[in-house]
């Protein structure tokens, strides 16, 4: 199975990356090159094999349910491209 321009455009939208139409043919080729190479995984018999999300199978550790951080809005906002009155500023999302 190979990707076409429409699918690649859709993937770009899902990934929230603007791709201009002129870039599409090149990108389709590159992604298909990689995905074709990946297809070799289909020859492996994975019957009965559990998927492995990480190397540690133990349960994640828990900590006490107490507030141990926060209350530092200046630090949180320090690197924001736009911030005012203690908030991040974004384009209007509700008409």
């Amino acid at each position, binding site marked *: 199975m190979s*990707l076409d321009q429409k699918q*690649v455009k859709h*993937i*770009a*939208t*899902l*990934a*929230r*990356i*603007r*791709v201009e139409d002129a870039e599409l043919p090149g*990108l389709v080729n*590159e*992604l298909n*090159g*990689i*995905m074709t*190479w*990946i297809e*070799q*995984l*289909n020859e*492996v018999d*994975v019957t009965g*094999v*559990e*998927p*492995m*999300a*990480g*190397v*540690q199978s133990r349960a*994640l*550790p828990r*900590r006490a349910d107490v507030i141990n951080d926060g209350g*530092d809005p200046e*630090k*949180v906002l*320090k*690197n*924001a*491209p*736009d911030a005012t009155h203690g908030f*991040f500023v*974004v*384009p209007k*999302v509700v008409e």
Partner: protein
Amino acid sequence: MNELNHLTIAAALQGLATKTFTAYDLTMACLMQMEKHRELNAFVTETQDLALQTAMNSDIRRAQGQAMGALDGIPLGIKDLFCTEGVLTTAGSHILDGFHPTYESTVSANLWKAGAVMLGKLNMDEFAMGSSNGTSYYGPVTNPWRRKGDNTRLVPGGSSGGSATAVAARMALAATGTDTGGSIRQPAAFTGIVGLKPTYGRCSRWGIVAFASSLDQAGPMCRTVEDTAIMLGVMAGYDPKDSTSVDLPVPDYRKAIEGGVKGLKVGVPKEYRLDGLSPEIAKLWEQGVAWLKEQGAEIKEITLPHTKYALPVYYIIAPAEASSNLARYDGVRFGLRVPGESLDDMYEQTRAAGFGKEVRRRVMIGTYVLSAGYYDAYYLRAQRIRALILKDFTDAFKDVDVVLTPSTPSAAFGLEEKFDDPVAMYLNDVFTVTVNLAGLPGISVPAGLDSRGLPLGLQLIGRAFDEETVLRAGRAIERAANFTAKPEGF
């Protein structure tokens, strides 16, 4: 006091302890070397003032007879993937323009607590995605090594290319790196230095810009195995802020390295003898086997049957995790923002302008393999094969203590080569990537020069949390190889 920047960490610690020179002198020697070789582009940010101030503080502590840390007064470079409080941190990406973290990564904090001096932040492939340092927004890094009689500029490898060049070019005594698929070991091999990827969970990932969270691990890049042991001892340790860091005591690695390999069972995986493996690499590997045998190790052929699937598995899992981790770059909380007509338009424009080609490629692959209808076929299948790759190692380690392989399929290549075909670039990590998928420790040790005078490395892989055996076997290779070559002019 000439050429203090050429000292190993071990020798520098001794010189400082005997007051033969000061941390200020040592740091100044490194800063001068950095200035002299700026054309290599190893650093994104140099922190001269901070370095000299920290070095002076170390000298004052020593003069006053205060307790000294394990790296007190030792000048280091830090890969620009580690968040450093108040110091620009870019991950080699345009999208982190102007990002000055308000916190310090745990690993770098451990180094400063031990008295180390920061020289600056090291160039790298963008978000650690690359094997040449060619994807950095801040431009490529040049390897200080050149082919004999040929002035072609070569890559230092990647993604920790700035780290490798800084250490090989004697700008820093050592550097931190990170390794997701080979990003410490491949550049170490390309520049004739030692690089160690610890077991997953050995070093805290807190405060390191995330690429693929189930694979990323920080580790040291140094000029000797002994220095690597010293650095690892400081970097490693449990951190409650990283839920995958492991609460195990940190052994005295330096003590472990001289134990020798007598009676050690060394596995040689037959699947790593790739079709078309360069004869020079094959010869070096045989030489490594002979060296360990001569020192009393027992050599066994082993099988790791799923080796050939490791790279394609990696190129599903790593992009999938990256697409999720890199979702945070939205133009709202930090870094670059390109204004747009709507919120979505701003996201799309910011991410199109802020991510380079390779990052965009991987985020899109990751998005695709996680998307509805493809998740089972790609992502879950890759995770199942990852389990088989781990099982290969678990089975092999029933019979052997350590595995010996080449570090890379070739020596360093030219700055202009291999950029047209992403898959050709990915093949650089063919010997290293299995180790990340299985979460094991691996070291690359310089073992010789190829016919064109470029360094080549051998890799040793150990059981989980058995860095001691990896270092001990690495030391045996180092002792036998007696690698003293230096890049010309350094």
